[in-house]
């Protein structure tokens, strides 16, 4: 049971500051959706939370422990990251991929023990990939490959799980299945989950809280209906997106171009 707290995060690359004072909290059992336009700093924030990018100021703590004080191995036991890229040229099996999640627990001779085998089996089971375990990663479908990578992150047995656009390359049914699985795991395993999502409707359907990021700062955070509002969506994302409420849930619908826009483009 972990919670992750980021306070006053400023971070960037070389001269460009991407995050300008971000606060974020994710508690055990909840799925926080990180949304915002391209370039808002979502992926950068995820890198800071994972300890992969050192913030220029501000702190990230996990259960009160400052991440900056931990080495890579110790961080990997607290925070798992599901990578966005899951292509590999080498013929690992799904089980071998899941076992990579145990890298931070390798013994001095680089061996894994029975605890590790159990964690891998449990991760594969939780993600519904046990049947795939002995298949080669380059011979399964995109959705199955993503499940292998999710199993890898789960096998880390970290309290915090970070996902960078986990639905990016999936069809709508697999998008839904993935988020459903992740939300269920967050509750069942008591994980604090933060997922960067582009699709506001998926965020509204699965996240317990939504954090809207724009220009490196949090614009608003809270329950989906309080963040995904017509005013905020049009301010942050621009025009052409209609927000309607249905069953108490906000839906974002892209509008076809108006007569005026078409005219302006033609002229």
């Amino acid at each position, binding site marked *: 049971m972990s919670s992750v707290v980021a306070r006053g995060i400023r971070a960037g690359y070389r001269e460009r500051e991407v995050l300008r004072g971000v606060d974020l909290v994710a508690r055990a059992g909840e799925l926080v959706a990180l949304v915002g336009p391209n370039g808002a700093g979502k992926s950068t924030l995820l890198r800071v939370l994972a300890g992969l990018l050192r913030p220029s100021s501000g702190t990230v703590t996990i259960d009160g422990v400052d991440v900056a004080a931990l080495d890579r191995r110790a961080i*990997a036991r607290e925070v798992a990251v599901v990578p966005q890229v899951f*292509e*590999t*040229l080498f013929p*690992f099996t799904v089980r071998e991929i899941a076992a*990579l999640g145990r890298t931070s627990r*390798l013994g001095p001779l680089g061996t894994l023990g029975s605890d590790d085998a159990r964690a891998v089996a449990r991760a594969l089971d939780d993600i519904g990939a046990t049947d795939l375990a002995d298949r080669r990663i380059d011979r399964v479908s995109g959705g199955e490959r993503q499940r292998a990578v999710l199993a890898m992150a789960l096998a*880390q047995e970290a309290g915090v799980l970070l996902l960078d656009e986990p639905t990016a390359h999936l069809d709508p049914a697999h998008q839904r299945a993935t988020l459903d699985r992740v939300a269920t795991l967050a509750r069942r395993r008591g994980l604090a989950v933060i997922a960067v999502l582009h699709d506001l409707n998926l965020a509204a359907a699965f996240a317990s809280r939504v954090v809207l990021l724009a220009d490196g700062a949090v614009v608003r955070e809270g329950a989906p209906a309080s963040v995904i509002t017509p005013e905020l969506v049009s301010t942050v994302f621009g025009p052409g997106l209609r927000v309607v409420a249905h069953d108490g849930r906000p839906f974002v619908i892209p509008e076809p171009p108006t007569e005026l826009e078409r005219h302006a483009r033609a002229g």
Partner: protein
Amino acid sequence: MRTVTVFALLAVALVVSAAAGVLVGAVAIAPGDVLSALLGANDTSGTIIRELRLPRVLGAALVGGALAAAGALLQGMLRNPLADPFVTGTSAGASLGAVVAVALGLEPVLVPLAAFVGAIAAIALVWRLARLGGRTTVLTVLLAGVVLTSFAGALVTLILVSSDRLALRLRAVLGWLQGGISVISWSELAVAAAVVAVGVIGALLLAPRIDAYAFGEETAAALGVDLDRTTAAVLATTALLTGAAVAIAGLVGFVGLVIPHALRFLLGATHRRLVVASIPAGAMALVLADLGARTALAPAELPVGVITGLVGAPFFLALLVRSRRVIV
């Protein structure tokens, strides 16, 4: 089960090729005489077998095993089957180190160490150059490797021509540079074997962490790998293996490239298995290549690098064409 079968086959193949390497040569020696020579018979055959053929076969095995293991490590860390000590400029750096040592008249047993120094300087420089663009890609590593190989080659030629000590033995040195397991003494063999042993232990210890590079450096770091330390350790291990190999056999290309790649089809991707299998497979490949080099144009002798180049270069090109999509 499959793994066990592959390892058993590799072991048998290595023993058979080593036996062939000792039995066959420019001078015909009957198998019975080979056996008595191995048991210590004191005649011409005994000298040929014990002082020429056996050390040569063992040297070839050592070189092949070391290069293949080094290739497996480099490919794993770069996530690409196009890397090996030769194309990354490591071998060229090692050859420069070895030539400098010989030109300075250092003890022959120090040559592997000088080659190691050259190898580690070369691969560290290549890595530094490849890093300039931010992340390390196989393309930038290969480009830096090409540049460094040319530069080291030019320096080697310069030293060869200007050193009186080497000019006298120009033919022998040129043959060695082309990849030739020339006359090798038991003491040189022992030093190289010790260096390779250290390198192999390092490779085996590093292998599980190299698996974590499957999805790139960033994911490896997220999985708990200390990138700087691991990179340094892998490069040092590669340099040890390459230095020892180059000290014995000069520039032998493609063994480090082809062997791990072929084994991946048979054994899968995990690097500990791959490194363990690369050693007998690389050893066997180079023992056979050396046998070919000795017998193809007998009594004339080809540098073994000619054989590995003839077989390996087309293989490399095929690989390049196939993986064009994902080379960077």
